[in-house]
């Protein structure tokens, strides 16, 4: 289990490197890219940067309020160990039953201190890897739509458990003709 996927806000990991930040400090914003509920964080286990990602993205994006870009962070299991954060296999709540039973985990008993450690280490990795990092990603809406349509086609997603509007928008975006835009002035 090298990585755990957690949906995030991509821009929380963007920083302008403020000059007030002391050496070794981490800005506060990235912490809000890793929110918890009841001191627990819902994550999805992936073996590599590519493994089943499209399927997980489709499943999670299909339950959103609208068809959006999907932004995620891949938490390194070694960092979790260093931060002393424990995980527990639990049933997921996505429209993909296979993923729910096999890949879902809860990170549990997360204290503020542990969350800061996890955030700081993840942020540091992102900073070191720079533009080529795969730790934090934004998948464009158009690509998300393709994943959703493909997963529906393969029967991975249960439409009844997904947001009907998202499914409809995904079908339109993938299957429809390119958007009509006003003609450009000469």
């Amino acid at each position, binding site marked *: 289990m090298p990585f755990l996927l957690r949906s995030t806000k991509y821009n929380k990991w963007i920083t302008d490197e403020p000059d007030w930040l002391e050496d070794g400090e981490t800005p506060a914003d990235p912490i809000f890219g890793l929110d918890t509920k009841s001191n627990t964080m819902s994550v999805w286990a992936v073996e590599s940067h590519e493994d089943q990602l499209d399927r997980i993205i489709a499943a999670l994006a299909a339950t959103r309020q609208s068809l959006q870009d999907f932004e995620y962070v891949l938490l390194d299991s070694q960092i979790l160990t260093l931060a002393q954060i424990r995980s527990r296999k639990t049933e997921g709540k996505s429209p993909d039953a296979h993923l729910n039973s096999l890949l879902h985990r809860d990170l549990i008993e997360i204290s503020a201190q542990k969350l800061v450690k996890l955030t700081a280490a993840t942020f540091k990795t992102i900073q070191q890897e720079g*533009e080529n990092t795969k730790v*934090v990603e934004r998948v*464009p809406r158009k690509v998300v739509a393709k994943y959703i349509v493909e997963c529906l086609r393969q029967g991975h997603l249960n439409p009844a458990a997904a947001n009907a509007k998202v499914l409809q928008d995904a079908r339109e975006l993938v299957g429809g003709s390119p958007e009509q835009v006003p003609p450009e002035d000469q």
Partner: protein
Amino acid sequence: MTFEIYNPPSESEIIDIHTSFSDVGWIDEEPVRYEFGASTYDFGRMFRQFHKRETQPHKRLDQKSSLQKEVKPSDAEQLHKWIPLVLQEQESLTSLQLEDLTSRAKQYFIVVLNRYGSTKYGRVKAYGIKCGDRTPSSPSDTAHIDLYDVIRQEVARIFIGTEDMLADETEEVLANRLSECIKKYQGLAVTEIQHLIVNEEMKPESVEAVLRILGDIDDPSTYKYRRQLLEKAVIDSSSSVVRDAASVGLSYMDDPHAIPSLKKAIEKETCPLVRKSMKKTFTQLEDTEKCLSFCGAQSTTSG
């Protein structure tokens, strides 16, 4: 800037538009070159609506110069729909006064923008006119409104309370309010939003939400202004979060016309994550361009 509303005497008749101030430009000059940016291209938009998007060479009108143009009824009707909306927003304008004004401006309006000094405020003046008389009467006292005050208030209303909302809630509330405001005031609302962004009068968190929403709104009449705003922000904003959001907004628009701006932005970008995001948008737009070229070739081949 001053907006003056006239009602021309009849359809398709040549009328004079007198400008009292210098430095009035046409839309064909790139709006970003204007000191007051979109404020000026709203003028162009109005004018272009009026002249059925006729391409105008760039001109500057000297002080007190005049210009003759033919009134196109269909375009005038569009303006007719728009102006009363603005007028009704003016609380001090009673229904009787509004009736008085609209009865004098029965069918057609011309909006002329003049710039003066360094103020960004606009004013609408309505002139009564007698049928067949080409000389406007004195401005109506009842019809003076600060157009930009109205729009500024409307735009400010969009952000009320959003700072204390949760992120998801903020986005939804902003999207609804912004969409409503832009559909109502069209390019003028975009103008005011651009002003707030350029002058950094909005917090980056609000700006980034606004830019993404601007890329996602379905409103063809403001399409070009919104895209230009996003192109400007993706290159020029001092905030990396804002540049990133502009890049997302452009990906939502999915318009290959933004490719040159994105290319410039990527070359200039110093934040790795933002550059990564911009490159994705760039690739997407290139794919869309190829797709559009292919579709175009297909339709040509198939006749």
